[in-house]
């Protein structure tokens, strides 16, 4: 039964990260690895503000969200935007994002060191259901907040004009430019929002586990796998993908060892790419072409 709790936890975290990643992937059409750093940097900002600067926890939470979305947005503006303007292929922009990832990860470890840092959370203790299931308050908050985040994101992309614009640009950049949408602006906004949600989950993860500079990549990797096996389409495919991944990972952690979780995630990815290259939804991601 303890498994069910952790499966729910991992599923929701993966869905939110994958959704935030999808937001940026769909609008700019390449796997940006610097997303990993945004996840980590959110947690580091909270650590910096709330512990080193001894600011109020909730205030530093909000500040850190704002700062990390600014960072995500400025990465797009300073690095990817000029590359897109020069019509570089997606592989090259991805290599540039690898560069950004390496630079920022090392900046983090220069500033805060490589060791584990505890993120003091306001939520301590746990509740016990049915005598045997332990759920910590952090886990409950994470599950609830992730669910809320998904609802907000869904509402945002369906009902607000900026959400609709980002959706348009994701579906067909060329046509949306013809209709008069500022595509670069929309991509910038999608990076801002994607980083916001990524940093949010990063902080939530960090209050359950600890923060290390590598945590961003460790959590982004399963989220990317989720996105690939889910394919392009509705959010329910993402939930399916994340659920499958979380179940298999938890079972492997339960029966083998938790060290093999990354390997199992990758084996699922191989199986999917071999048999269903476009994921659950089966829709082919359309590259930009006229």
């Amino acid at each position, binding site marked *: 039964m303890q498994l069910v709790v952790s499966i729910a936890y991992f599923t929701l975290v993966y869905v939110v990260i994958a959704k935030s990643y999808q937001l940026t992937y769909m609008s700019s059409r390449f796997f940006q690895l610097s997303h990993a750093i945004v996840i980590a940097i959110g947690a580091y900002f909270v650590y910096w503000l709330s512990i080193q600067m001894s600011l109020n926890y909730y205030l530093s939470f909000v500040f850190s969200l704002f700062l990390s979305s600014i960072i995500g947005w400025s990465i797009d503006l300073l690095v990817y935007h000029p590359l897109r303007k020069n019509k570089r*292929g997606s592989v090259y922009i991805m290599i540039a994002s690898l*560069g950004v990832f390496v630079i920022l990860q090392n900046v983090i470890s*220069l500033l805060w060191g490589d060791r584990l840092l505890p993120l003091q959370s306001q939520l301590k203790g746990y509740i016990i259901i049915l005598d045997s299931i332990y759920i910590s308050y952090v886990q409950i908050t994470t599950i609830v907040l992730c669910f809320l985040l998904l609802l907000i994101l869904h509402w945002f992309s369906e009902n607000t004009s900026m959400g609709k614009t980002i959706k348009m640009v994701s579906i067909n950049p060329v046509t949306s430019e013809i209709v008069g949408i500022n595509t670069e602006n929309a991509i910038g906004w999608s990076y801002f929002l994607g980083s916001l949600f990524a940093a949010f989950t990063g902080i939530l993860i960090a209050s359950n586990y600890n923060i290390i500079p590598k945590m961003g990549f460790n959590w982004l990797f399963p989220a990317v796998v989720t996105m690939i096996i889910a394919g392009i389409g509705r959010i329910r495919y993402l939930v399916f993908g994340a659920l499958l991944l979380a179940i298999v990972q938890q079972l492997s952690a339960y029966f083998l060892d938790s060290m093999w979780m990354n390997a199992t995630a*990758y084996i699922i990815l191989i199986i999917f*790419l071999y048999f269903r290259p476009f994921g659950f939804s089966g829709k082919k991601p359309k590259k930009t072409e006229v």
Partner: protein
Amino acid sequence: MEYILHLLIIICIYTILSQSLSLVAGYSGQISLAHAGFYGIGAYTAALMAVNFGTPAILNMLIALLISGIVAYIVAKVAVKTVDDYYVVITLGIQVVIYSIMNNWQDVTNGPLGISGIPTISFWGVPLESKWAFLSVSVIISGFVWFILNNITKSPFGRVLRALSEDEIYTDSLGKNVGNAKVVSFVISGMLASLGGVLYAYYISYIDPTSFTLDESIFILSIVIIGGMRNLWCVCFATVFLVLLPEILRFVGMPSSIAANLRQIIYGIALIIVVSRKKTVHIEAK
């Protein structure tokens, strides 16, 4: 003098690695991030064989070639189904898996503690203990790798690779087997990379998984990209430059904890600069 010899040996090892990656990333245009994995497979095979069975170095090299070839074949068979950035993600995943096997399969690889006490390299019972002798061995092996790669890239097969990196569908329509060419180039590159690993294991005589991380893959890839992807000479010069760069930082008097991070930052900046320059990029993704 010892120090210079050490640097030359390291340069030889990295030349093998970066030139073999250049075959995949440069010539056939498939950017792979799994190269440190094959490097690690070579190193671990040689180390385990030498420590557990005491087999001669030549045999270890052949077995390392065989094992990394088999792994590369399986990987390439899967990866060939994908293109562009999916390919990068697949190879990234392979790197993660190989690293986690090296780090977690404690019965065989001894986990994060690594394998120590690898004997010095010896040929026909003659151990080569001095650095001069080891340097000559590594020069011979890297020269051998260079010779093979030079021949491959100048052969008709090399031209097929170059053609498919520019236009896959057109190459296919000329009757060339594109998928096969990709698999073969990936396997050759993985096998040659394992030679670098064998040399490394014998040279350092202690290996642990941290030498074969994703950062290492990124480092090798950045050598290839900075070297201009498709020129074995330029890749060799880029290797010399990037291997000597951290040594310059050490002479300036940077503490080693900062220098390691600074080194990586410099590679990252170099990657971004090279990618954003127009001239250096040969291949455009479709």
